[in-house]
């Protein structure tokens, strides 16, 4: 059975609080607050949002001013623009998109000192003393001064 996706059209302007329990695409303008727990919010290329947004996943192709909070992922596409703070465990930002603000990818249920993932501490990877001659780098060799 075909399930229709909820969407807010280009000419629609909403001032206030918007919440729901299904995926939503916004092509119009929303000022206020958006809450879609467990669902995906897509801000279409014509969408203009000035709001605090909470959702499972947020995809931005239009313009957003406000903080984004996603339990899974925030995805800013090439045409997307975000000014605000992002809190999400995964964030993808395409080259050419615009972003200004802060990004916090810490998993809140994880202690901070365990949240560093798979990163290998550089010092442990290169135990040799710094005074030794450097190996030939890929490009732009350096000289210690």
């Amino acid at each position: 059975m075909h399930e229709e996706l909820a969407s807010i059209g280009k000419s629609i302007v909403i001032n206030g609080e918007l919440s729901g329990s299904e995926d939503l695409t916004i092509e119009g303008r929303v000022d206020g607050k958006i809450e879609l727990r467990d669902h995906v919010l897509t801000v279409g290329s014509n969408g203009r949002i000035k709001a605090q947004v909470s959702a499972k996943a947020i995809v931005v192709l239009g313009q957003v001013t406000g903080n984004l909070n996603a339990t899974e992922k925030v995805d800013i596409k090439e045409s997307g623009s975000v000014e605000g703070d992002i809190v999400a465990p995964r964030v993808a930002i395409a080259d050419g998109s615009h972003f200004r603000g802060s990004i916090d990818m810490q998993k809140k249920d994880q202690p901070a000192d365990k949240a560093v993932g798979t990163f290998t501490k550089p010092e442990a990877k290169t135990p040799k003393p710094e005074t030794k001659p450097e190996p030939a780098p890929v490009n732009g060799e350096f000289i210690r001064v």
Partner: protein
Amino acid sequence: MNTDQKSGGLSGLVSRLSRQHPRSDDEPGRVAVEPRTVAAESAETLYASKTLQRFLSLLFSRPAAEVVDLGPVIGSNITFLGERVGCKIHVEDLYADIDRHVKQDKVDQLPEFLSGRFSLPDGSADAVLGWDIFDYLPPMAATALAGELMRILRPGGVFLAFFGARASDNPRYTKYLIEDEMHLRYRFYPSACTRRWVLQNRDINIMFAGLEICETVLLKSGVREILFRKRILS
């Protein structure tokens, strides 16, 4: 010894820089200018960076560190710093601010703008990625930014910056993509202004008098990669 007094202080630095490094388009011949190469525009080159490695190792020792990136947003850097190193990243893109001031012919307002640019509280940042922003800032603006960076850095916090060796008439900025903990990929993009301000080591020392230098690496290109750390008050 008070370096600031000996060298005439920040005001002396500003006036000396203004004398020594005029706009290349005002007084041609007084500034060494890199030839513009069309091929270089599209080239992406991988560079080894010792200072990045050290920067990351210092950052790694601070769980949930707060990093301020003065450059434009780069998705792969966000992934690297956010997911692998576990930082909170503040993307500021001062290059866009410089461009806006240049286009609106308001470069003289940059010092005042930069003095109030950061909303971060004093001593709240664990690290700042400055890239080559100082090559594009007139002396007064550079001094204002340096003051702000020293304000927002916590004691023991680190600051990574690159300082060019020569001016250039090529209107482009560089995006620094973190390839891994030892390598950066340079990607160029158009800008409204050129790399015209060359800071000498002495000028850098005066400008960042509140910081100590952890590591300096001189690339063959003449670029100095410098890693600073804010002094911890005893």
